[in-house]
């Protein structure tokens, strides 16, 4: 283990600060809360003492595990009312014309499905669909790549289930093509 020294900790902070904040803002959907939890995560890292000198792998796993627990605790303690994003303001489908209303409704339904997912699923989907490598996602989750794929598929299925539920409730049904 490396000793707890401030210079080493500052290097760790600079290296992983954005990654941890990115994870937390996705999980909480709120900037202020994400900033607070990021600070708390690094505060605990400092108190933890030190990490093995292994190119940061251990430190990254530890930081994300702590961030995940802090975010899950905050979620459980009733901070889930916050809107993670504006559901009713999707970008307008282009071009305006054929079945514009239907396409707009589809977009709102998918957003609603995304919003109803648990934050862990939502965070995973946001990371994946914003082109983050699956290896990085797996490392942040602290799992193997295969497991990350499985979780991703489960999250996708849950989103699809929510979406279908919305569609049936609205009397519409989108044809779902599995990739």
């Amino acid at each position: 283990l490396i000793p707890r020294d401030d210079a080493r900790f500052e290097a760790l902070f600079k290296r992983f600060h954005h990654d941890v904040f990115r994870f937390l803002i996705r999980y909480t959907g709120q900037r202020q809360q994400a900033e607070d939890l990021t600070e708390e995560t690094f505060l605990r890292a400092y108190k933890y003492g030190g990490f093995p000198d292994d190119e940061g792998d251990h430190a990254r796993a530890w930081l994300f595990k702590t961030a995940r627990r802090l975010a899950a605790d905050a979620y459980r303690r009733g901070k889930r009312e916050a809107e993670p994003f504006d559901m009713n303001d999707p970008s307008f489908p282009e071009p305006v014309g054929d079945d514009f209303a239907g396409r707009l409704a589809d977009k709102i339904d998918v957003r609603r499905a995304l919003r109803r997912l648990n934050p862990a699923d939502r965070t995973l989907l946001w990371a994946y669909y914003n082109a983050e490598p699956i290896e990085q996602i797996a490392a942040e989750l602290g799992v193997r790549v295969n497991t990350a794929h499985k979780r991703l598929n489960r999250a996708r299925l849950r989103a699809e289930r929510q979406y279908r539920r919305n569609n049936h409730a609205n009397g519409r049904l989108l044809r779902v093509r599995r990739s």
Partner: protein
Amino acid sequence: MGDTDRSFEELLREAAAETDPWRHATPPSADPARLMARLTRERESGQETLAEPAIIRRRMLAEPAIIRRRMLAEPAIIPRRMPGRFVSRRSVTAMAGAFAGVLAASVCIVWLGRDHAPAPAAEVGAPTASARPSGAGYGVPGLLPLQFPQGTAPARPVLATLARAAAARSDPPVSAKYIAIRLQTWSAGPTQPSTPDDGLVHAIDERTWWTSDFSGEQIKTVLPPQSPGVLVASPSVGPQDFAQVVYGPGDLKVAIPDPSAQAPILAGQIDAYLHDAADRTLVTAAADLFRWHPLGAGQRAALLQVLHDADGLIDRGEATDRAGRPGQAISLDTTADGTSTRDILVFDRGTGRLLDYERVLLSRPGGSAPALVAYTLYVAAGGVDTLP
């Protein structure tokens, strides 16, 4: 109809891209100055060591001097975490005395009720477990004898019977302030509280009280040692060391806080629970549910129905758990990273309650197998209005 030619995948990709908070957020400055200033302030004001509960709890478990662990004979008081609150020695003695009495009575009942014939050999068709894996400083209990009726029969028929038996019961719901669960556990490797490294089997009596805000209390007692290969639960004799931990609101990680009595809903809850950790299986989820909840008849029936609907569960016939209680055993085998494990559940045939959960290592690269990894005996579950 809406845009029927667009796939859900495309819509989801589009929605995820548009709504990702990270894409629309300006990253905060990665300047550690603010954090270091906070640390300095905490250090100067002496708050650092009391910063947050997780740190306190870890320290309690790590340092014998701080952990609330006392011999009952000592003229000591047991401090709680909250300043100004204390438990008197008298109440601790009374609590521990009552607990020891109940445990002694239950063990006596179990002892009187069980067959004192020599313990049967390990399960038919399986190699004998090594009582002490090479290099381990702890003793390992024997494998529970299991039957293999007609080879490996699916567990569906017996689970359907158990679900019907559970549904036919009418347990009154637990309406007390605290849920109280009592277990006896053993697991390979390090334990909390730590057990002696003497090559003997050290089971732990674990009592947990928790309430709706996920706060509560846990008392663990190391039970008297037993010889390796033992098949019966450890008895309790006299006053013992115990470790008491108090959890603040939100500190206890309760598995599926509100389990449904509707099988489809419970299946969804379990699915989400399994999603949170890769090493969980349906069987361990069932064991975790009983570990935290005094499940009512409807919840038990729903859980048994969920197990019934799952693939891969095997009927292991009638089994007697380590407390001498007869029950119906089922198992699930899983393999990961070259290591095969078997999770076993033993249910009470009359009530559908879980009596025993066992995990057995079937094979592992470079190690002895089969060997018991852990067991949990479900001793009691109910509710109380006040903490001990």
